[in-house]
């Protein structure tokens, strides 16, 4: 997906993990994933660089769809579909 397409995605749940370091964002995603239904979209806000690789790999192992990452000023948003 392009950045424009990602930005236009309707998000069902947003998790702000910007105040945490590894593995905080990953654990926040893991905790929150149980709160959304199949096919719903969750975004994880993080400023921890390692999260950019951790969450896509975690999605692959858990059978979720990693949709992409949106760069913001000083942080980024990772979008995934359950």
């Amino acid at each position, binding site marked *: 997906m392009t950045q424009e397409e990602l930005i236009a995605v309707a998000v069902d749940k947003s998790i702000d993990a910007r*105040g945490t*370091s*590894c*593995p905080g964002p*990953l*654990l926040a*995603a*893991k905790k929150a994933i149980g709160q959304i239904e199949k096919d719903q979209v969750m975004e994880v806000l993080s400023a921890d660089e390692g999260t950019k690789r951790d969450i896509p790999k975690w999605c692959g*192992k858990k059978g979720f769809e990693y949709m992409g990452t949106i760069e913001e000023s000083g942080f980024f948003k990772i979008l995934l579909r359950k």
Partner: protein
Amino acid sequence: MENKKLCLALYTGSVDKLTAAGVILGGAAAEDMDVEIYVLLQAAFAFKKENAMTNDRVAEITDKKDEFLASLQRLSAPHWTQAFKTAKEMTNVKIHICGFAGKVWHGDKLDDFIDLADDICGIGEYISSAEEADVNLFI
């Protein structure tokens, strides 16, 4: 599908290595791994009730201890006990205190150790767990 198993032989009683162990446990929890932790010698000191929150020894780069501890605070990194607790809440983590290690630090009973500990065991259990694990770590 059966969960993958992580077996951790935890020897260290130093907060730098215990913090690293907590980070690894977080990764294991995110992946729903079953985790068996065997608390050996120096780690048993850190798991004693009277030591867990006050012990601030570091094993490496000891001349930068103050900077290291300040950085953990700056990054809002959880104390290692909290990281272990979070992992226990999120996946199947069992923490076993080595009976010999406990005695070295005058801890004969489970009650001598922080609530994270599940039981006191012998080394045979560790060997069996290590044989069965998908991932084995010694910290």
